[in-house]
């Protein structure tokens, strides 16, 4: 049983919650907030109340038999493509190491693929104590069913308290299947993972409503607590090749390799271009570029800087650049050292995808553009004047320097 409680001693009937509620589920009656049937228990009003008069209540059911107490350790689901461990795995080990230390337990990793034992050592260098390796020719490419079965099996056997995986194309296909199989909770796209001091639960913070609000999610009665994290959100540790760890090769169960779907081929399309998720410098263009023909300004500046090209959703939706360039909530999360936003107004959906960049420079002619709220340096001006000059100047200095 769960409900939204109005604490009568605290509620003054100010009505702040009425505007916060997306479902018209609140009304003010005799200077008290009242909740009607439309309430979905989303919790949006709880934050809006200046008097802390709204509380989400949940009648605590008994903890599921023993699963809380015998679960221990942190497990990272490593990701490989074409036999190479992807850097998101190292980032997960970075946060995993901290969580393992905070819970006083070990950090393990699971690596599924074909001929990947040599790669397991890299996971140890980045922080894993133990690496479980499942190898087979049938596992060379990602397979939703086989990978999910193997992962569920090792989680059942090892009973980790926490499982973290990448919010990647593979992770997003795989982990929900595993969570359903295990009947446990899963929180997507976490930007913060902390162990709560008192309860020892994993506080999982993620953006919601298109990044407009942040929500902290708990999974208090089930283990493991499962979370996905996007690439570039967490930082990897500096690898230590001398770190000791154990590589445990486990033969996959025959039945786990029998699947209905199969990959016929895997095609790389972006070969030869700078991947924006990995770039140190990104030059991004938005609606202010006014057309695909002007995106060459962005491309030239990017080339001069040795940077990758990015774009806002409006530029992608307008068809000026392909989706693979999109930065933001429905595109890629980036964390470059320098992010140059050109003609991007800074819708919240864009900001959540780039605001952890080290330095943000924004060029926009509208002084009130929200992008200036997150920019380290904001330039109010005409990008059609500024960008070509900037490109020329960078090119000139490069020549002089070389």
């Amino acid at each position, binding site marked *: 049983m*769960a409900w939204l409680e109005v604490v009568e001693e605290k509620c003054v009937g100010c009505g702040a919650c009425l505007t*916060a509620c*997306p479902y018209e589920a609140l009304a003010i009656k005799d200077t008290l907030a009242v909740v009607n*049937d*439309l309430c*979905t*228990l989303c919790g*949006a009003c*709880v*934050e809006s109340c200046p008097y802390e008069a709204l509380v*989400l209540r*949940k009648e605590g059911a008994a903890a599921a038999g023993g699963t809380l107490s015998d679960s221990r350790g942190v497990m990272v689901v490593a990701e490989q493509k074409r036999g190479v461990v992807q850097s998101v795995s190292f980032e997960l080990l970075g946060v995993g190491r901290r969580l393992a230390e905070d819970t006083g337990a070990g950090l393990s990793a699971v690596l599924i693929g074909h001929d990947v034992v040599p790669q397991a050592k890299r996971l140890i260098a980045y922080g894993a104590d133990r690496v479980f390796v499942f190898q087979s020719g049938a596992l060379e490419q990602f397979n*939703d069913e086989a990978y999910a079965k193997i992962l569920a099996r090792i989680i059942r056997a090892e009973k980790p308290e926490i499982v973290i995986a990448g919010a990647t*194309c593979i992770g*997003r*296909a795989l982990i*929900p299947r595993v*969570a*359903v*199989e295990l009947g446990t*909770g899963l929180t*997507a796209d976490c930007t913060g993972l902390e162990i709560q001091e008192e309860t020892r639960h994993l506080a999982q913070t993620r953006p*919601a*409503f*298109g990044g*407009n*609000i*942040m929500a902290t*999610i708990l999974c*208090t*009665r089930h283990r493991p607590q499962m979370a996905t994290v996007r690439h570039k959100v967490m930082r990897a540790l500096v690898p230590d090749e001398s770190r000791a760890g154990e590589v445990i090769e486990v033969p996959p169960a025959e039945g786990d390799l029998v699947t*209905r*779907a199969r*990959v*016929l*081929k*895997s*095609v*790389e*399309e972006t070969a030869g271009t700078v991947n924006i998720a990995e770039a140190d*410098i990104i030059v991004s263009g938005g609606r202010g570029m006014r057309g695909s023909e002007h995106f060459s300004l962005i491309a030239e500046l990017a080339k001069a*800087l040795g940077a990758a090209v990015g774009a806002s959703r409006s530029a992608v939706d307008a068809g000026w650049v392909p*989706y693979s360039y999109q930065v933001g909530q429905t595109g890629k999360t980036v964390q470059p*050292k*320098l992010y140059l936003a050109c003609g991007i107004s800074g819708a*919240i959906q864009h900001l959540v995808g780039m605001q952890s960049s080290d*330095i943000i*420079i924004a060029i926009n002619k509208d002084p009130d553009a929200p992008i200036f709220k997150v*920019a*380290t*340096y904001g*330039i109010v*001006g005409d990008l059609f004047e*500024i960008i070509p*000059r*900037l490109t020329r*100047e*960078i090119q000139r*200095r*490069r020549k002089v320097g070389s």
Partner: protein
Amino acid sequence: MNIIVCIKQVPDTTSVKLDPETRTLIREGVPSIINPFDMYAIEEGLRLKEKHGGAVTAITMGPPQADSALREAISLGVDEAVHLCDAAFKGSDTLATSYILAAGIRKLGAFDLILCGKQASDGDTAQVGPGIAMQLDLPQVVFVRKILELKDGRLTVERMMEEGYDVVELPLPALLTVTKEINEPRLPSLKGKMRAKKAALRTMSAAEIGADPARIGLEGSPTWVEKVFTPPHRGTGTVWKGEAEELVARLVAEIEKFKLG
């Protein structure tokens, strides 16, 4: 071919604005829409039906007002609409939601294909589609950008990956989640709108789909929201105005600090 499309009614997040003073959400007057990604799933379902025959059923779990999303789906050409509606569903997380939708789908009888949008624009989890597939023990492909072939009960599709795409083959029944690259959704026809107005929606409660009360709603949800807060504010930096030449000089000075030259 029996196709089921799962849809969700969401607040139009693109029209959500922040109150500049309190930095809280202004949700007043924000319209409810069909999750934009689900529009591509509806369209793909209709195209498959037009090519291979059969029927398309839209299904949603949501409060009474989610009716309007189903009516919109009918106006686009969907044959049947099913509303899983019960106060007991409130507060369901992705695990409980996939359980409820799977139970509802089971109740509808035999099907060949389930289509979902790749994620909902309010929660952005992308967990319910693969969750339903697992609940119903179906093969799945997520982030499908193209259906290449449907022949002899087998589908061949392209799924998007970070660096390109995979071609995947799988037998029906199956579940796909689709991306916006897959098609261009149609607009409702006038005839469709008329039909939507009159159409009878099938509503099913928790009891009618045989849902276990312990697996639905907040009670059946392992995860729950402890607190909600406004994102931390990144400190406002320096803003420069002036002549282009001077601005460029300052910019170059900043960029030079990275020793890019």
